[in-house]
């Protein structure tokens, strides 16, 4: 029995929507975990157990590296600096906030992903796949929208992760000798983004902590 395209798409859309909406200090790790979970059925269909292992390893690495980055940022004494969750500039008050614009972007990504899925084949000429790219294209489009409406460094890191994980899954779909190395390489960016965000969070957290102590 073949996999249900609707089921694969639904899982991918749920993962991408959660990644699109998540905020806060652990946003990158949460986004990577949900994206990997949402795209795992697609990866399993085309890459089998090794495909799921690539996404699983990516999610675990993102969580661990975010934690390691945060701890390292708190411990290492010679650097101080930038909190990634504080907006880089203060925009004027608007009717719709950052989450509203992301929700609108997530809705607008549906027709884009749908067109890509139906019109763009992926893979070699003999093994090309068409019509199953929807969850990947949707997650990627959401990632680009998240980058474009980013207000903080954390948003930029989530955007990079949201582009990285679906691209890795797309490499699994294309089949051929280089699909697994390609998928691993493409997925590497997500844990690295989680590490950088964790590192900056650790440093930002240390600075806030020391300021509170000084005020006390």
């Amino acid at each position, binding site marked *: 029995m073949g996999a249900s395209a609707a089921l694969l798409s639904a899982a991918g859309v749920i993962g991408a929507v959660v990644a699109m909406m998540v905020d806060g200090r652990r946003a990158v790790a949460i986004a990577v975990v949900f994206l990997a979970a949402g795209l795992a059925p697609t990866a399993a269909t085309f890459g089998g157990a090794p495909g799921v292992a690539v996404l699983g390893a990516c999610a675990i690495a993102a969580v661990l590296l975010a934690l390691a980055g945060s701890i390292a940022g708190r411990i290492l004494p010679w650097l101080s600096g930038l909190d990634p969750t504080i907006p880089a500039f203060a925009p004027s008050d608007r009717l719709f906030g950052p989450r509203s614009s992301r929700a609108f972007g997530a809705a607008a990504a549906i027709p884009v992903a749908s067109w890509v899925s139906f019109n763009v084949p992926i893979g070699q000429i003999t093994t090309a796949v068409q019509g199953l790219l929807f969850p990947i294209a949707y997650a990627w489009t959401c990632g680009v929208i998240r980058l474009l409406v980013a207000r903080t460094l954390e948003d930029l890191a989530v955007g990079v992760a949201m*582009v990285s994980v679906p691209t890795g899954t*797309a490499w699994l779909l294309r089949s051929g000798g280089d699909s697994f190395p390609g998928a691993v390489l493409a997925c590497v960016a997500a844990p690295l983004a989680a590490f950088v965000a964790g590192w900056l969070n650790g440093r930002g957290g240390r600075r806030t902590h020391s300021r509170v102590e000084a005020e006390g």
Partner: protein
Amino acid sequence: MNPLVTAAVWLALGLLASAALRRRTARLVAVVPLVGAGLTLLVARSSTVAVPLGGLHAITGLDRAGQGVLVAAGLSMTLVILLQPSIDVSVGRTVGIVGAAATIAMASSDPLITALALTAAVATLVLRWIGQSPGRATLAAGRVTGTGTAALIAASPLLPLAGFTTGDRPIVVGALLATGVAALLAVYPLGGWAAGIMASLRPLDIAPWLILLVPVVLLIGERIPGGGLGDGSPVFEHVLLVVGLGSAVWGGIWAVRGPAAIRYGRAFMADIALCIAAVEGAPVSPALSGALIIVVTHLTVAPILLRSAGAGLLWPRRVAWALLSGVPPAPTFWGRLLLLEALAAGNVGSTIAAVIAMAAIFIAAVLACSTRARLRPASGWRRRLPDLAAWLLVAVGIAIGLAPHSVSAFVFGG
């Protein structure tokens, strides 16, 4: 030597320089690009040109033009650092990572590796820019360049296009690659971020993008249409021709109208936009030679013009601007003539747009030359060293103007 080893040395030296150097020894940061450029000379020569449209391959060497671009950019970056009045040692980290990424991007024929290398470079630059000056302009740099590298990453699983040279797939790939190249070269409508950071950051913070990354992306962009894009080639070429010409005119006008402090940045952006428009609009033509002459001229004068006007070098700055004016024997005359010749072979509209952009850059150069400044004369040999280095660079610029093809062939190969 493998390009990966050179990239590793760039990276290691950059990290070491930012961790070990102190304010008194800050000028030693210049060792990072100098050693990088020296090692690039030792990299194994590849007989084939690396076009990032293939499958996953091992990186084995650099072609002659790529090697020339990286060496010239490394030397130029060295002189930019040496001629700055003050240096923040943490810039060594940025220079090291961007240099390593540029080396890998230039040597790789795999779109994913190239895209990931460019993502690493851009992420490092954006982190530094936002850290130095958090604001709308630096955040826009992150948004736009991030989107550009995301587009390049997204194109990677769709490549190579063997068997799919017609239909929607090559068109989607062409559009993604054009978006990536335009965003990284700061071509309008994706170029506002570069103008913003030039106004809000110090020249040394912008230099790694301007000197190390832009020439590499320009060369990669020139090679893409020849790599078997099929129906995507016209999309890639025409998009970059139109936005490049529009950007050149816009950049030229703002080089004339804008503040003097960012005039060089605007002129640089206009010239690069003109180059990308010409090499995409007329691929089989003298456009590439013209673009390379303009790139090598900018790499020569950038160390002088990226130093703020109030920090001395009044007369070398004036002569450097004269070299950018496009009046013979300035090297830019020959470069722009070749670009114009290439564009004229296409259609009259692009020729008119290019002439307007060139005229605007000429006016900007005249305005910059006529700027008056009252400076204290330098005394002592230590204070006169920047003047000496600047005059040597000016002499190199004049030499390029007297023998543009020979110098271009010497740097980038025949």
